[in-house]
């Protein structure tokens, strides 16, 4: 055999050997890394703060979009977020219990789905007193020492919903609102803001009046019962606004089953695929008010971080709101699918 061929073969075999050794060690190393658990972020940096997010399991606000917003800000500001969901009948005790946990676990901050309740108000103040920054969702609770409230402006929701209903009914008729009631009745202030928004929106439509508000409890069936009652007892009602996605889909079933699609215009809430599908196909759901949940998550952590760094932050942060109808449904769906692909 030629000497050159021999040496070339030895060289090639040596390179293959090095490659295989490297690959073997790399693989064994990756196994060792697997036991360590996934890093919070790609940057593999440690967290600077620990925030507990105390959220209502039944509330669709805290779905994937909201968590995506949290994740994004958590990475941006190096905040470890511990999400603890509460559910059950005695939600106030649950919330208080988890807030105690935050105290004992020495969390740096708490994002809480708050209720307008004296015990919760006191607990918020206690946490703030212990140096744990509290950001409220759901309820503003400006009377507490909380850092900030992050959420949608209910007056604005009312305004948008009222406008959408006026367009759907051509400004003539009577409208009803089916409102979700989580665990307890909403505060008067909140209720007033939403209804005030609707009333203000209808001011330009003298032939269209705001007829009644109905409150649902948990579950889809409840909304269906309410919608059926409205259709039966108030035949003059030709427009309904639902304040959450579950209720919207429940009302859709009533309208379809009772052949009321052309008689009652429905303005829904949320951007569930089913709701968007109904808007896209037309006629059943006229439009839907969509809150940017991701923005709520993002802003909540952002405001916590800014508070820890500057101690001065706005007390009230409103997140974006959008009405999706036949005209902008295509663009919205494209945008949503692109965002989904990006996250994947």
């Amino acid at each position: 055999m030629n000497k050159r061929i021999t040496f070339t073969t030895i060289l090639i075999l040596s390179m293959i050997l090095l490659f295989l050794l490297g690959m073997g060690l790399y693989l064994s190393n990756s196994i060792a890394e697997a036991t360590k658990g996934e890093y919070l972020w790609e940057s593999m940096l440690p967290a600077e703060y620990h925030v507990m997010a105390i959220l209502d399991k039944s509330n669709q606000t805290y779905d994937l979009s909201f968590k995506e917003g949290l994740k994004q800000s958590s990475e941006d500001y190096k905040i470890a977020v511990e999400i603890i969901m509460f559910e059950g009948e005695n939600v106030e005790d649950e919330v208080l219990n988890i807030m105690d946990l935050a105290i004992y676990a020495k969390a740096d901050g708490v994002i809480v789905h708050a209720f307008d309740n004296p015990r919760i108000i006191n607990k918020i103040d206690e946490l703030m007193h212990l140096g744990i920054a509290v950001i409220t969702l759901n309820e503003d609770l400006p009377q507490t020492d909380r850092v900030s409230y992050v959420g949608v402006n209910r007056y604005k929701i009312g305004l948008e919903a009222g406008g959408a209903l006026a367009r759907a009914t051509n400004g003539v008729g009577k409208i009803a609102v089916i409102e979700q009631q989580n665990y307890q009745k909403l505060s008067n202030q909140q209720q007033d803001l939403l209804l005030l928004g609707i009333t203000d929106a209808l001011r330009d439509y003298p032939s269209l009046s705001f007829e009644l508000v109905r409150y649902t409890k948990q579950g889809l069936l409840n909304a269906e019962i309410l919608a059926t009652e409205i259709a039966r007892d108030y035949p003059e009602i030709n427009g309904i606004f639902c304040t959450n996605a579950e209720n919207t889909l429940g009302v859709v079933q009533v309208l379809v089953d009772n052949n009321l699609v052309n008689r009652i215009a429905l303005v829904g809430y949320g951007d569930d695929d089913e709701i968007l599908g109904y808007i896209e196909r037309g006629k059943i759901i006229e439009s839907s008010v969509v809150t940017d949940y991701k923005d709520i998550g993002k802003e909540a952590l952002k405001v916590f971080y800014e508070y820890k760094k500057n101690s001065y932050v706005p007390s009230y942060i409103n997140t974006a709101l959008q009405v999706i109808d036949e005209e902008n449904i295509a663009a919205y769906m494209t945008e949503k699918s692109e965002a989904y692909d990006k996250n994947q």
Partner: protein
Amino acid sequence: MTKINKFSSIRNNMIVYTLSIIFLMTVLSIYSLTIMERYQGQIEAMFEKHIYLSQVGSLMIELDEDLLGFLSSKSSTRLNDYIINSEKLEILVEDAYEKTFNAEDMMMKNIVNLIDAYVIEADKAIAYKRQRNVIKYYEHYQKSFKIKGFIADYIDQLNNRQLNRNSVTYTQLVRQIVILQNITYMIVIVLIGLSLMIVYLITSRMVKPFSHLSHAAEEIALGNFDTEDIVVESEDEFLLLATAFNHMKNSIKSYIGEIKKNAETEAKLKDEQLKNIKMEHLLDNAKLYALQSQINPHFLFNTINAGVQMSIMERATKTSQFFQTMASLFRYNIQKMDSSCTLQEEIENIKDYYELLKVRFGDRIRFQFNINSEALNMKVPPLILQPLVENAYVHGLSGLEEGGTITINVVDEWDATFITVKDTGKGMTVNVADQILNKSRDDYEHTKFGIGIRNVRDRLELFFHQSDLFKIECEKGAGVKIIMKIPHMKE
């Protein structure tokens, strides 16, 4: 003397090759050990957190039991146990958390902080118990109990989380073990390949020079010394061996060359001697021929001299002249038999011969001489012209009634002198001429035809050590022309 590079001696090469193979085997062993160690570490890591959490959980239960025991019985033993377990727990969780890199770190941080909070609340409960403040100690005990619940929850969560991850890791581990096994097989195959290549390199490097040497030795044994020198690229003992072998081969080749040269010189010398003997023999033949044709020259010479004396006494001038010429001819013949002479002497002899013929045949035989005088001093073998002239007369002209002319030309050119003897006689065919010239010297004894011509030719060639000095041009009925080339001898 060829020097070897001490770093590339066979011994060092063998050491390097052996070390290479040992190195490769060591690499394989270290690799296998590293992989095994990592897997061992991996398996340990999979369970170490469980074990740790289980220890924390057990201690928490013991601590809570001790606390409850003290609060319910105020037993100092329970308090003592509480303090011991409390210290144990503190030591156990001391380094459990440093920074939050992942969700598990975060949970571990919570557990550590919760344990701190538990101990604080428990201590307060104990302190209030000692102060007999029932409401307060109960309140703090409630808090510690609540915290204990949180800790247990976190331990469960962490255990579940790790169990889930470990099950995924185990699946991954099994899959990766299969891949690693395949990689290890490939590494073993590559290592075997590499080792074989190294062994091949060693053996070929050692065997190749031996093979060349044995082939060259075989060739030399068959007497072929013209094989190429053995080339060894390495600077080791093989180079010394090859150089010595090449040197030996070239020395033997050179000795054999010298012996051959000596043998050739000796053979040449013997050949020369043989030629000389043959020339002498030819001369003897010529002498014999002369004697035969002239009976007894000495007797005749003396007789002719007596005839000269008698003619002078009788005042027969022409007869005297005739005899003098004849005497001169015989004298020349006798004197010049065994030495060289000049061309002029040869011409003079022919002129004498002509004078005799003129007496016998009058004007029937005519001679013409065209002599370039510059060539007359040329050294030639004696009696080269007379046999030719005799032949021309005897075989060419003697049978012709009208006689003929014999022309002798001597032309001098830059490298040779050309002597031409031409007659106008009967001539002969080319075949006959070829027969005369091609008969070997040994045939002299058997035929007398052409003996003079061949004798002249042979002597010429022997004298000048050259062939092709003699040429016959002839045609039947048109006379014969013999051309002799006398090369100019270099001084």
